[in-house]
């Protein structure tokens, strides 16, 4: 069945919806758009919409990816036009293209993601101070975080290998932290864990909480990242 890849943003009120709600939101939008959505067979048919990587509730996504299957061939421009008009506030279609039938699953290709976090500083911090804090953070031999296991037991894990890049800068009273993290089925690192550890170690005067943005999701090509758009 014809498959289409969407590049979209999840922002504004839509950033607060869960992964399951996101699936429902797209399903409803596709139906409003009058597009012939494909469903799985069986007692509980599910819409054939597959996301690259789930996004945490509250984190905005600037360039997210999902594939959707229809039961009839339609020109991508037509699908994009109809779907774009049917999306609720905060879900914005950036681009849409047809994908070959034999293309692999998006989710399996995901290897890393880029992020941005913004927070208010309670006292002025110089650009140098922020940069040094990141350098010191990354120079630690290990970055250990505690995580609760499935049975409630505590697990300690080193997330450092999953931090592929990180930087910080200051805009007036706002600190902006950017990072590239390992994402997907192997060695997944959550941005929140990185920020919590960084906040604790760096002791920068961050006030309140960080606003989180995922700026991109990528596949790996050797040591480089490759856009999911062309996987």
């Amino acid at each position, binding site marked *: 069945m014809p498959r289409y890849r969407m590049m979209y943003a999840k922002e*504004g*009120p*839509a950033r*607060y*919806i*869960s992964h*399951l*709600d996101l699936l*429902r*939101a797209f*399903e*409803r*939008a*596709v*139906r*409003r758009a*009058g597009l012939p*959505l494909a*469903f799985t067979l069986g*007692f*509980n*048919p599910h*819409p054939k919409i597959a996301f690259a990587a789930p996004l945490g*509730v*509250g984190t905005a996504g600037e360039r997210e990816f999902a594939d959707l299957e229809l039961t009839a061939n339609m020109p991508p421009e037509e699908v994009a036009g109809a779907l774009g008009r*049917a999306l*609720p*506030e*905060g879900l914005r279609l950036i681009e849409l293209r047809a994908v070959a039938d034999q293309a692999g699953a998006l989710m399996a290709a995901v290897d890393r993601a880029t992020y941005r976090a913004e927070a*208010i500083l309670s006292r002025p911090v110089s650009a140098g101070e922020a940069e040094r804090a990141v350098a010191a953070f990354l120079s630690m031999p290990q970055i250990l975080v505690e995580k609760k296991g499935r049975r409630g037991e505590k697990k300690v894990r080193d997330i450092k290998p999953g931090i592929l890049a990180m930087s910080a800068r200051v805009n007036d009273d706002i600190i902006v932290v950017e990072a590239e993290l390992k994402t997907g089925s192997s060695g997944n690192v959550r941005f929140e864990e990185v920020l919590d550890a960084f906040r604790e170690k760096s002791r920068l005067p961050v006030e*309140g*909480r960080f*606003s*989180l943005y995922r700026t991109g999701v990528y596949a790996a090509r050797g040591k480089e990242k490759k856009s999911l758009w062309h996987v």
Partner: protein
Amino acid sequence: MDVIEQILPEVQRPARYAGGEWNSVRKDWDGVDIKVAFAFPDAYEVGMSHLGLQILYWIVNGRPDALMERVFAPWPDMEEEMRSRGLPLFSLESRRPVRDFDILAFTLQYEMSFSNILNMLDLAGIPLMAEQRDEKFPLVIAGGPCAFNPEPLAGFIDLFVIGEGEEVINEFLDAFLEAKRRGLSRQGLLFEALKVPGVYVPSLYRVHYGEDGSVLKVAPAVEGVPERVTKRVVRDLNGAPFPLRPVVPFTEIVHDRAMVEVMRGCTRGCRFCQAGVLYRPVREKKCETVLEQAAGLVRNTGYGEISLTSLSTSDYTPVRRAVKALVDEYARQGVNVSLPSLRADNFSVELAKEVQRVRRSSLTFAPEAGTQRLRNVINKGVTGEDLLKTVSAAFREGWQAVKLYFMIGLPTETDEDLDGIAGLAGEVLALGRQAGVPAGRLRVTVSVSSFVPKAHTPFQWEPQAPLPALKQKQAYLSGKLKGRGLAFNYHDAGLSFIEAAFARGDRRLGAVLVNAFKLGCKFDGWSEHFSLSRWLEAFRRAGLNPEQYANRRYGYAEPLPWDHIDSGVSKEYLILEHRRAMAGLTTLDCRAGSCTGCGLCPALAAEPVYAEA
């Protein structure tokens, strides 16, 4: 970064407060004359499942001179964040403080949400008592089924609307605008609103108490105020405004589907049922209207399910035609059709089979009582034989799970009736086995609630069984409903006890509500938040006894605190129905053509409306 954006990531299910849903309406604040905040005193996912909210939202936002925005009770984690940061209760659409609106309108669906009303007023920075509010605060109004006994809330609400809101809301807004144009005071405005039939202004009435403290009457305190307020009824549902672009939530809600109301009211006459009286007379929509509205809803919402709603959808005359047309049209698009309330008869299984071509869930029936004798007392027109035939057919058709709803503590109930519940459940289970449902899949769920006497019903004079007796009945059933394939659950009896006190309460219960609010009562309909000891303390501090309201038999001749509210059904009829119940006599459905003499049609100059099959 604003405060709300800082808070949202910290709380459970932030989508409850984020707004921005499909079809939500954001109007230019300064471009309209009148701003209404619609408040649902429960969580977002409960409130958004309520069709009444969508209807009123559609009507008010359809007026160029008005806007309506929504607000729900924040979950306690959100409330805590809001209070600690000094953030007042705000609307979802414009995120403005509720205090800035002209009107704050509550819907009263359930007595146990009253504590949330007080909490929401407080969180909004609005004085709880109507008499403490001046022109700078919104007018606080309320409607919905619990407005039919408005007395426990009389001190907090400026004005109640009794009955169906579709027409009265416009008349009221017009009156409000007129009062505003003339620069009337709050008091003047209330008098202006009184011109609208169905409006009850509690501050213009005085309660007269007898020497023993009983209520003698609730009567006008001022000249020009009607003795009785009669409910409003929409005569033709086909022409009535119906939301074809309802707000579609981002997050999953309780009833997450497109709702087409196929009829209003119910002709069955179950004697415990308040909705059956309040929504009389029955009015069916034409099948064509239903199909048109469903088409609009599917197009405008994208929902994967259409629900044909009413109090008893299998009674809707053209139900078969409507279901067939909808399934034929929408099954291909992966849109399911559902019927929320089925009768225990073969016709219902046929219908269920038809609608569940797409997805098959469990089937639910409500025999309500365990023996035929007691079913006759409550006038539940269904026999044990009907039920068994029906579930047997359902099992043969491939259903593996059946839910059965019962009530305990019904008038005249004995142990034999409780045994009957266990007996029926056992027989249903046996039928499942006979039909060859695999033992691992077969499931019979028995759900039991406690009888609560409600105003304007034939059982309004009946006592609720004392709390220890209710608990004993639950324990008794629990002992009998054990075994593979059986699941038994029951509602918190303490909660039903407090609900009963408020269902028949009078104006003095306002003091109990204030105490309960101060003691921290909120979300009392949720058993994880309900605390009986807090409520008992709230009653104690008010010098009142909940047993006096819940567990007492009221006399026919005794004035009732809601006598000044007219549901259209005569008291003589309710007495007659109560007497027939005690004699074990059933009363026929008025749909069958024989008028049962409830008095509503002549009193309200309204009549049942039936559609063509």
